[in-house]
């Protein structure tokens, strides 16, 4: 397949933008993948991605499967010290997901019940504001809060700035994570592993968005129960996600802080 210099630079540029270096970039450029990649990128431009978690349809199994697939395809290892654990998507009880909202007469359906949590891909993200090297930034064309693990110096200012606890730090070397906890690490050879000393978090499956696919957690959740997770374009008033938001009362985590979280919860 022929590819001129301009096309090559375009793809190389986009893959750098996506934080895909080395091997992943090479695979993007591999024959056969090119058309998909070229189509995928315009798909994501001019969008404002958001997610709706429908807690009326959500259950433990869906959450566990979503967490499992995310951590598998992104090579997020388990570590011995749970205080230093890495997680891109996780569970937390209602009381701790929405601190300050709960009261002494809780609805039975929500008391102590787990919610699914991930990076909110805020409209006005404080983590990006504080980063001294722009290793984390808000992608202009679709609002994904991205991470460049090759530029991150590991100062952890973003972790102090994030009011949602969405960021994980590689305290140890993820490639040396204990084998008994990670028998098959790296679990996905098409996605890069990280070095020690850098921050990571949910990237809203930017690598899948580039191929025109939806985030893996949403795909898995919908296979189990349709509508448990909805991913879509908040900028498009006719999109499914906007339809859901029109029809349901939704809440977000800590909206009073002005970060503009883009993950909504139907309760």
């Amino acid at each position: 397949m022929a590819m001129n210099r301009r096309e090559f630079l375009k793809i190389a540029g986009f893959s750098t933008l996506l934080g895909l270096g080395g091997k992943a970039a090479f695979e993007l450029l591999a024959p056969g993948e090119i058309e998909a990649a070229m189509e995928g990128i315009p798909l994501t431009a001019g969008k404002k991605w958001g997610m709706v978690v429908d807690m009326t349809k959500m259950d433990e199994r869906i959450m566990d499967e979503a967490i499992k697939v995310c951590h598998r395809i992104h090579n997020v290892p388990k570590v011995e010290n749970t205080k230093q654990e890495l997680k891109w998507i996780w569970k937390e009880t209602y009381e701790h997901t929405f601190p300050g909202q709960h009261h002494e007469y809780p609805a039975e359906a929500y008391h102590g019940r787990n919610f699914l949590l991930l990076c909110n891909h805020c409209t006005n993200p404080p983590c990006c504001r504080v980063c001294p090297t722009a290793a984390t930034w808000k992608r202009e064309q679709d609002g994904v809060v991205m991470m460049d693990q090759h530029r991150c110096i590991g100062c952890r200012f973003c972790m102090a700035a994030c009011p949602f606890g969405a960021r994980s730090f590689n305290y140890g070397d993820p490639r040396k994570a204990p084998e008994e906890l990670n028998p098959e690490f790296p679990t996905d050879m098409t996605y890069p592993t990280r070095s020690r000393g850098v921050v990571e978090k949910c990237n809203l499956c930017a690598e899948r968005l580039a191929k025109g696919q939806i985030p893996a957690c949403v795909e898995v959740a919908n296979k189990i129960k349709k509508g448990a997770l909805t991913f879509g374009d908040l900028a498009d008033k006719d999109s499914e996600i906007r339809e859901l938001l029109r029809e349901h009362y939704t809440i977000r985590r800590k909206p009073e802080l002005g970060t503009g979280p883009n993950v909504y919860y139907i309760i």
Partner: protein
Amino acid sequence: MLEKAIRGSQTYWGWLIFLLLVIGVGAGNFIYQFFEGLKITGMSRDVSWGLYIAQFTYLVGVAASGVMVVLPYYLHNYKAFGRITILGEFMAIAAVTMCILFLWVDLGQPIRVLNVMLYPQPNSIIFWDMVVLSGYLILNVLIGWNVLSAERKGIHYPKWVTPLIYLSIPWAFSIHTVTAFLYQGLPGRHFWLTAIMAARFLSSAFASGPALLLIICFIVRRFTKFDPGKEQMRTLASIVTYAMILNVFFFLLELFTAFYSQIPGHMVHFRFLFAGLEGHGRLVPWMWAATVFAVLALVLLINPSTRRKEDTMILGCASVVIATWIDKGMGLVIGGFTPNPFERVTDYWPTVPEVLITLGVWATGFFILTVLFKVAASVKEEVAGY
């Protein structure tokens, strides 16, 4: 002038060798941390800054406080301080060096530190912290060295140094203001999100820095023939007193806002620090110790008879140093992170390697301080004709 540093007594050399040993142990542990990652520290997801950043915050204050001897001399023509401005400047050099080292050992990827300059981000406070800290270091090296060598030759320091001296005064205030901005602009961290943070930082700095300088002045007088002077020390003690009163006052303002408003998010951090939360209370004895030392310091320093008596003055100053070190170090950093954004409590306590690396950095600072003060004291002795 540096040749003055290589001629000294046995005590001097013994002290330097001791510091080198501590530096060596710290460096060894840093190499271990470099290869294993920060997992060898007590830091976690929830408490992602610890002992290192606590020391950094405290020492920026010590560095900034050099201005408390520079300002009265150069702006108010308070002649008596002419004798000790050099000590303030040299202490600032040692303190800024420690600050930079503490930031550096805290990085997950220390070899990438220059990314801060390669990809400068003016929206990040860390960028500005790098600018003001390195600027302050350069200013104090240039000013201190030139003024001291001019004094040695019995001439007036070069004219180009004067604007730098004036610049160094607002610059000193800037370094601690910017350091406070690292904390006070973060949404969702109620303990830090307070407009008085920078003012609290400065008051605590102007108490702890001169208090430390006073203690060091006594040591200098004991080991060299250079006498910083009785009047100078008394004036310094007054500065410490006023600053410590302000510092405690500002802290009480925080307590009022939190506990009169009764907003849980504002009260909970103080509860954690002073009473413990959900059975986690390792900092409680430390915070109460800081309180006791702060009260003791105020009693000894406000009372004129104890402030003027040297041994009680030193005890008061030492109390100031300890109280502010706990309050603006571990208290500030760990208190701000606990409880976490989910209102959960995660314990933090430094590990042995973490403490040894910290001691190594402190020893590096004291090494620089000793050498610089040795030079300064020797030059002063030489000029005085000993």
